[in-house]
């Protein structure tokens, strides 16, 4: 049985910052990540990030991932376990079950755990939604930006949130034609600057539209045609408003939901907060869940931007270390700073949804 002072699960923006923050306080950290390199979703984010310098604004996600990973790797207080998937939390004795390199089984008992497992993609129900050629946006990003493979020639992007907009832009960069971006909401959910970026490329964005059906090519059985239709202000489709797109790829980017399996297994109190992407853990302002010693950060704690994920990670890492007695006298100051930064990031109009969600969680 392996022992860890602080186990950080997930090496994305939240987990990396948590590990660094805890290590900075003097705690020994074991950072566990299922991929062969650290960075989480950062490794496929080829665009420059928003936020402030504290979260590496104006640097590409992929480079932020590299910067943080380098710091983690050279930090003597952090041990990293790569290609390692935490598949279980056994609540009877608080043991983590970890699959390493798909060949080893490691059990680990940690004094504190920071769960920073991120989120998974939501899917959509429509006729023939299982045809080959229909992908999640994350899968398309992985395909293109990690493996250098384009998914097809003509794409219908479903979802005008930041992910849908950014992936559309990346598809166009890769020479793939995005025929349209549609969204069932009456307005664009993502940042307008992203929307303008794709609009300038000639990609139409159609709000208040949803997918009606997908149709296969009779020979190949793969996607050939997508039909969309308008929804009214009660989200009901309006017959007669159908539009047809001849596309071989449909990319679904309709949001993320927290990847909280381990928290459920641990018995953390969860609450359904749609503004935060679904069921999220109840936690205090140290990012500690209702199960003592288990902390959360990033999308698993509520789907948000990478910038706030980093700050939550920092907060969780600091607090976990502090709870083990690591404090060089700077804890209160650093915590206050992180809380302030989080408040800043969420204070504007686009943070309204998150603020509403967090208020529900706190009630």
């Amino acid at each position: 049985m392996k022992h860890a002072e602080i186990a950080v699960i997930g090496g994305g923006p939240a987990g990396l910052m948590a590990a660094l923050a805890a290590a900075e306080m003097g705690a020994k950290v074991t950072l566990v990540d299922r991929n062969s390199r650290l960075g989480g979703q950062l490794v496929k984010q080829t665009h420059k990030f928003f936020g402030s310098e504290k979260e590496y604004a104006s640097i590409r996600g992929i480079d932020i991932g590299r910067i943080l990973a380098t710091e983690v790797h050279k930090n003597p207080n952090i041990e990293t376990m790569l290609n390692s998937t935490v598949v279980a939390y056994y609540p009877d004795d608080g043991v983590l079950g970890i699959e390493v390199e798909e060949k080893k089984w490691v059990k680990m008992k940690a004094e504190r755990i920071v769960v920073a497992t991120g989120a998974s993609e939501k899917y959509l129900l429509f006729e023939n939604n299982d045809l080959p050629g229909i992908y999640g946006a994350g899968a398309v990003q992985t395909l293109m930006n990690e493996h250098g493979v384009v998914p097809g020639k003509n794409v219908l992007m479903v979802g005008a949130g930041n992910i849908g907009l950014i992936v559309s832009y990346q598809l166009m960069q890769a020479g793939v034609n995005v025929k349209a971006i549609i969204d069932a909401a009456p307005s664009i959910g993502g940042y307008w600057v992203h929307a303008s970026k794709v609009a300038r490329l000639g990609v139409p964005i159609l709000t208040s539209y949803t997918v009606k059906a997908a149709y296969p090519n009779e020979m190949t059985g793969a996607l050939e045609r997508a039909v969309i239709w308008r929804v009214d202000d009660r989200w009901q489709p309006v017959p007669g408003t159908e539009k047809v797109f001849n596309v071989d790829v449909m990319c679904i980017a309709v949001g993320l939901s927290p990847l909280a399996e381990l928290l459920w297994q641990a018995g953390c109190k969860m609450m359904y907060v749609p503004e935060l992407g679904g069921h999220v853990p109840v936690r205090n302002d140290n990012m500690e869940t209702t199960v003592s010693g288990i902390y959360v950060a990033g999308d698993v704690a509520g789907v948000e931007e990478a910038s706030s994920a980093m700050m939550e990670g920092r907060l969780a890492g600091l607090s976990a270390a502090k709870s083990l007695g690591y404090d060089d006298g700077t804890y209160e100051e650093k915590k206050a700073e992180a809380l302030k930064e989080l408040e800043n990031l969420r204070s504007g109009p686009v943070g309204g949804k998150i603020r509403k969600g967090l208020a529900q969680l706190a009630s």
Partner: protein
Amino acid sequence: MNRTAEIVIIGGGISGLATAYNLAAMGMKDVVVLEKSYLMSGSTGRCGAGVRQQWGTEMNCLLAKASCEIFENLNEILDYEGDIEFKQGGYLLMAVTEKEVEQFKKNVALQNSLGIKSVLLSPEEALEIVPDLNIEGILACAFHHKDGHANPFHTMIAYAEAAKRLGVKIYTYTEVTGIMVEGGRIRGVKTNRGDIFTGRVLIAAGAWSREVGAMAGVDIPVRPERHQILVTEPVNHRLGPMIMSFAGNIYCQQEPGGEFIMGYGPAEHETYSITSSWDFLEVMCRKAVRFLPYLRNIRIVRQWSGLYEISPDAQPILGRVEQVEGLYVATGFSGHGFMFGPITGVLMAQCILGLPTTIPIDKLDLARFERGELIFEPSVV
């Protein structure tokens, strides 16, 4: 919700639903089933779903044989539009100690005498049935081709739907909070959704039967025991029968969908907790691979657990409760409630209606523990 009923059945598992269906089919009106959670939330919905006739006591053999015969025709009996997926691939029981071999011989003789055509096989003969079996350490096997397994969910839904069609009212998320007894007679039950007046109550509450019994002032000596189980990814069919070892403490079968389901019976503390543990996972893998080495390359998809309600002699407790008029009990199956479910339904309905039972169940009554007439079953996992 009904305010009165002919009978209130506490527990929406296989025993309760099968009894409700049979009562309605035999003409009883106003049968009410109360389930504190959703249907299949208890032991039935978590079980390994094996159905075997190879038992070591006459009582269990008779019950199992009759139950199996009902399973064979259950889709038709219940007019189920789905499929309960009853597959008779047999049970291959593996003896790994000399003592077990002796017991198997006795069992097979007993079973044969009761019309169960089980056979004793050499390990080499067992290989003809399970070609991949690692027979090292196996001294002998017992096999009965008519044993098998069913889909517990569909079996329950089949009963529930058939019962509903006959007028049975099934209330889920309805928890019994008290049983009204006056002058030694059942008067009704109290629930979180109001009271129901009735002269008859059947306790079919599985692992919670002791608590429910206490509400009527009756001690039903069953204790909850956590048992764990796991399921793998679906793979091509290569295991026909359920394989089982008592001394090796394992059962393992391949489902119609191709998934392997397996479990064992560790001695665990009395608990209502149904968490999963890592030691189960490890021990289970070792046990499974010992008999079927190819399982090594198959992936585990989920582990879960459920409760056995263990009676002092690991035998069912069926029948009238003498102390309280109108109170009946069907519990204590000690891990075999699902396979006995169909016959339990018939026998309990007969018993409640005051009819002679097709199989005598007097010896399985609750009072046997006071009388000291326990029946011990040697063949359990």
